């Protein structure tokens, strides 16, 4: 691997991180109104209390002191991202960390499944371009692709939970999870994650499969493929050793990007299935005007996207020798 390339990518990631830090500090402060107003109704809150809260949030200090305190908080472990209004007095970081594992489980698994299924289907239809399989699968993929997540989720929920009673209708686990034997615990969690996971996969795999198909179809027209066939390689070997390998390159960037977004959760699906993930938390934070929590969520999301992109770039440079 090229060390200079890694360092340069790392440097860009760091610059992006700094910009995110500044924006994350600035945006809530240029918005009209004071956090204290959002925290409690000023008509009810006595002015002395308001003053105390302003001090408690450090909003009476000069802006650069606030920025410094903010930086100290961010680089602290665990990061101090302020206090949530809705879960007062729980710190934002603690709140996010209680919701994040569920999202990582659900959305993380679904994202990986989506990529794998999408790529496999893309290779299948791309290698048989113009065939009946291609026409049918491509149309079906497009059909699912254009379907909104929440709508597909609602249908699955109604069908499998309410009509057939095969899967639980909501939540991430049953209330008495900790009292169950370990295997039942795993089964219970999987049962709860299945429908939302299926929704996410069904509604998103076409993004991969259609892109993979089109890239593969183009790769198959390249001269090196003609040569590979002329060399006497089997159809399979030409497809997997050469064409699909090249067609995978743009997919790496796409997978990296989507893995970064895993921590943002899947807002609509988590709401439909009342799944206690980061998406559901975001939804609650928006409804409650919980700005510190939202700010914290954006911060965590930005970090994850920056890190995932960094690793995608590194992996890309390992598989494509042309990247310097």
């Amino acid at each position, binding site marked *: 691997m090229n060390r200079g390339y890694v360092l340069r990518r790392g440097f860009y990631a760091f610059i992006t991180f700094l910009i995110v830090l500044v924006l994350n500090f600035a945006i809530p402060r240029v918005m009209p109104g004071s956090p204290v107003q959002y925290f409690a109704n000023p008509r009810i809150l006595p002015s002395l209390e308001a003053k105390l809260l302003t001090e408690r949030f450090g909003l009476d200090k000069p802006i650069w002191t606030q920025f410094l305190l903010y930086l100290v908080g961010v680089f602290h472990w665990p990061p101090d991202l302020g206090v949530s209004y809705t879960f007062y007095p729980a710190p934002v970081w603690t709140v996010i960390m209680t919701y994040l594992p569920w999202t990582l489980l659900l959305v993380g698994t679904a994202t990986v499944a989506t990529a794998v299924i999408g790529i496999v289907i893309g290779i299948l239809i791309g290698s048989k371009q113009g065939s009946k399989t291609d026409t049918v699968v491509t149309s079906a993929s497009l059909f699912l692709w254009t379907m909104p997540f929440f709508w597909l989720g609602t249908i699955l929920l109604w069908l499998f939970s309410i009509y057939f009673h095969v899967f639980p209708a909501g939540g991430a686990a049953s209330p008495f999870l900790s009292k169950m034997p370990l295997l039942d615990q795993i089964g219970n969690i999987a049962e709860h994650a299945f429908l939302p996971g299926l929704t996410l996969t069904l509604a998103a795999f076409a993004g991969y499969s259609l892109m993979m198909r089109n890239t593969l179809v183009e790769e198959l027209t390249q*001269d*090196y493929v003609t040569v590979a066939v002329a060399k006497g390689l089997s159809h399979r070997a030409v497809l997997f050793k050469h064409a699909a390998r*090249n067609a995978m390159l743009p997919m790496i960037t796409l997978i990296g990007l989507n893995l970064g977004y895993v921590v943002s959760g899947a807002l609509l699906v988590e709401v439909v299935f009342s799944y206690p993930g980061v998406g559901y938390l975001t939804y609650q934070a928006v409804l409650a005007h919980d700005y510190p929590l939202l700010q914290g969520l954006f911060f965590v999301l930005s970090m994850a996207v920056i890190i995932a992109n960094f690793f995608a770039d590194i992996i890309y440079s390992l598989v494509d020798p042309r990247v310097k």
Partner: protein
Amino acid sequence: MPLLELKNLSVAYRLQKGYLMAVDQVSMEVNEGEVLGIAGESGCGKSTVALSVLRILPKSARVTGAVAFGGEDVLTMGDERVRAYRWKHVALVPQGSMNAFDPVISVGAQIVEAIRLHESAGKEEAWRRARELFGLVGIPKERVTNYPHELSGGMKQRAAIAMALSLSPKLVILDEPTTALDVVVQKQILSLLARLQRELGVSFMFITHDLSVLAEVATRVAVMYAGKLVEVGPADVMFRSPSHPYTQALMRAIPNVHGDISQVKSILGTPPDLTSLPKGCRFSPRCPHSFGRCTVEEPRLLPSTTGSMAACHLVGG
């Protein structure tokens, strides 16, 4: 027995409606140790001929006639047999071989892939041979581990030739091997090819639209027009006294360093649309000598007085 024999080879591509005859009843042969040049304008079917010899035409192609290599019919070989035949007996330097290599695999590894696919050579043995092949075509041996984008155009061309020679095939098909190169590199590649051909005794099927290239390497020349073979003969006959008006026109289109530039004549008009061919001789609409019979009856390939075979009503019967 000729090394390669094409008999009444026709290739039709399926279109939205109907077929397009890319190659129409073409017969020719390549003998052991000779260089057959195939010349013609783009779309005349010369590349399709090359692809059908290796049986790597797209699925939409319908092939009739016969392709025999060393007496064995290529078109009726089983899948296993045809894969074993490819590259081992007939190798290819593709059109624009700038892109002959997979961009994410080192050039050496792609040569090794070909060797190990057909022979029971170990990894080290195969890499040693890849390095030797690099030496043979004049690339520094240590560059064998380079990726395609790390080689210059001329080097890539040499590497493609090295890969084609990796299994010492009897026949190498060169499809426009020098087209994308500048004149100086083109000259170097041509002399490399001429030298390799002499030293290894391999046969070449050399496809080009540039007749001046063939003047340097070909022993025999075949000229194609709109899917038809119009004239074929020994190179000196074809260059000195071509019989078919199309061959004559092609020869006049080659500029000569010592000649007068006003002598260079381009051929008026364009080749016909293969889906709506003119009646009779396909060249007749552009032919300066065309007469009544030419627009009615398609000429057959017959011996000419100079020693070639030509398909023209003015030649022979």
